[in-house]
């Protein structure tokens, strides 16, 4: 479904991605794990068009989408949920959701989608008229994910959805991701919480300073001694 080949991205003076190649099959959850500054978020931002690639190719459904404008990529069905619960704080929950469906023009479809999100995240329904900024951290993350789903993406890019959340909430978020995947959306999941990510993912890539150093089935990666030592902590 998505095929990235030899991607090179500069972030200011930093050569953030140095020839990254990876792929994703339809219906998969692929997780990218790695330490801070490994280039995970850069990779997501490049796929969604927020950062330009200097070399390499991003292909999506056999179409070259490298360096396409972000709004065009959204229309093609790739939606990113940015890192750090970035919701529109001065908009109500409802308006945030409607904003997620910005590329959708069919009002009926938007209303249906909102209903669907309220069914999936009942707390958002209860808070629909509240300003996004007044929600709690967990609620904001749910809103960010729900907003991403509003455009009915075929591929969802999640950037550290568990960041700064309590363990109970983290578990709920990962349950949600799994259920989103079960209903047919492919997911690229960038995570620091490697343990949880590897449990729900099908396949995994390990990034280190802009290069992919390990790839394989999630279960395999979970067993890999290097990963255990570097990302899971020796237990």
């Amino acid at each position, binding site marked *: 479904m998505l095929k990235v080949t030899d991607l090179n991205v500069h972030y200011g003076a930093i050569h953030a991605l140095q020839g990254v190649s990876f792929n994703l099959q339809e219906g998969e959850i692929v997780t990218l794990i790695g330490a801070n500054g490994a280039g995970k978020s850069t990779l997501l931002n490049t796929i*969604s*068009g*927020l950062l330009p690639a200097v070399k390499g190719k991003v292909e999506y459904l056999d179409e070259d989408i490298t360096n396409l*404008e*972000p*709004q065009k990529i*959204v*229309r093609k069905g790739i*939606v*990113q*949920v*940015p890192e750090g619960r*970035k*919701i*529109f*704080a*001065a*908009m*109500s929950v*409802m*308006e945030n959701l*409607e*904003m*997620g469906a*910005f*590329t959708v023009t069919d009002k009926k479809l938007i209303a249906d989608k909102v209903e669907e999100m309220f069914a*999936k*995240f*009942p*707390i958002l329904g*209860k*808070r629909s*008229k*509240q*300003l996004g900024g*007044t*929600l*709690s*951290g*967990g*609620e904001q993350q*749910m809103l960010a994910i729900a*907003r991403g789903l509003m*455009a009915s993406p075929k591929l969802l890019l999640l950037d550290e959805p568990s960041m700064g959340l*309590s363990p*109970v*909430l983290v578990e*709920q*978020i990962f*349950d*949600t991701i799994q*259920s989103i995947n079960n209903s047919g959306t492919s997911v690229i999941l960038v995570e620091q919480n490697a343990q949880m990510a590897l449990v729900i993912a099908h396949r995994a890539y390990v990034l280190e300073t802009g290069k992919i150093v390990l790839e394989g089935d999630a279960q395999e990666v979970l067993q890999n001694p290097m990963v255990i030592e570097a990302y899971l902590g020796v237990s």
Partner: protein
Amino acid sequence: MNKKLVSPSLKRGLTFGIVMIIFVLIDLDVMVATMLSKLFGANVIRGSLPDVGFMVLFLILFGMFVGWSTSSDDAKPTTKLFQALVAGLTLGVVLGLFDLILNQLIVTGTDVRKYLAALAPESIRLFLFDQGAISPLLHLGLFTVASLLGSLMKILLKSESASRFFKGVKSGYQGLQAKAQANTPNWVKKYGKFLLFLLIGLLAFFLPRIWGSYNNYVVGLVGLYVILGIGLNIIVGLSGQLMLGFAAFFAMGAYSVALLNAPLPHGIMLGFWPSLLIGILMAVVAAVLLGLPVMGMRGDYLAIVTLGFGEIIRILLKSDLLTSFTGGPRGIQDIRGPTLFGQSFSSDIDYTYIILVVMVLSIFIYKRLERSRTGRAWLAVKEDTKVAQATGVNIMTNKLLALCLGAAFAGLAGGIFAARNQFTGPNDHQLMVSMNILSILIVGGVNSIPGIILGAFTLKGLPEILREIENYRLLVFGGLLVVMMISRPEGLWPATRPNIEKDEGNKLKEDGAPGKGGLND
């Protein structure tokens, strides 16, 4: 009584004494007295002085304010009175000493206008109530009594029985309101809004014919600034781009109409309406030319660049290089007004009509824009550019669109402005114009139409009506802005967004158990 109680009151009296001295030195006291006398309907001719009674009234009000503010909220009544007494006495002594100096000036016949342009002997005499040597004592007595009065007022109004009384009045009023609402017949409810608009429409039709050209001029000016405010609000308030050179677009509209519809320097005489249209287009073209290179900038940088742009346009209009084309520093005179169905439509009444109609139209367009998909996109861009992009908003197009639409409003207002004045020159398009429009938004309330109207009235209408303020305009302006920012940081009439409830209490309650009822459990 202990020192802790005396010293703050003493300081307060001293501070207000100095404030009053400054007021006297810049003649502000006479101006306020004049305004007070106008409030009571006295007709004061420009340049002459108000009745001495109004000066007394002003000083009493001043003293009462000192007494009110000196009495601490949580003190006992006797303490309050004592504090006010100390402050009032201090104030009186300070001004009494000052009076001695002033009196000496009068006696020796010194004219200080060489050093303090505003301080005429007549003003000093008015401040001294024309009583010469005993005026220090009069002031001392007046301020002490007034301060005590202020304190007494605070004690009475803030007492429990008084607050109970106010509560009673409030609930009674609400009851009456509810009753009235229940008793209004259905047709009033149904057509009430329509009737109200009809009434306003009728007023807008007949008032300009009745109230004379001066009021038409003031209303027209306020109306033009409302249009300008709406335009700038699209750029600053809706799409979040801080723009400081807005007058440049205003100039585009004004000069287009001037160049195309005045006998000199080109004599094209295209007619007002086509010129106005071209003026709007020119403003939009300018916006595109400015917008394309600077779209990537944000915040302070954008403000600086747009500021420069505004100045470039003004200096170009004024430059020797373009004198043959734009008329140079002398500007363009004799701009012809509009015609309607072959009839001249350019009396002051007609201009008021035009401006009011354009203003209503602008408000309508603005309201539609605000609630549109584009309006939502602007809000998103303003809040978080990255996330807006991630939801599929085209940043460049939307920002540029906001700039162009705002510029179009400015071009429109500029065109009407030039034709109404029958003149435009570089001085009509100074940086101060841009600042004024931005101030209207800040004082009135960003993203709020009633706020913009109120702001335009406060900053452009009031100074016209209260001509006495003129010399103190910047002082009052600055003071007003400072007070506003402290007491009403969101503007006089802040924007309210429908469909939003502030449910803080509820939120706090459930925050203890995060995730409860959340997700698909």
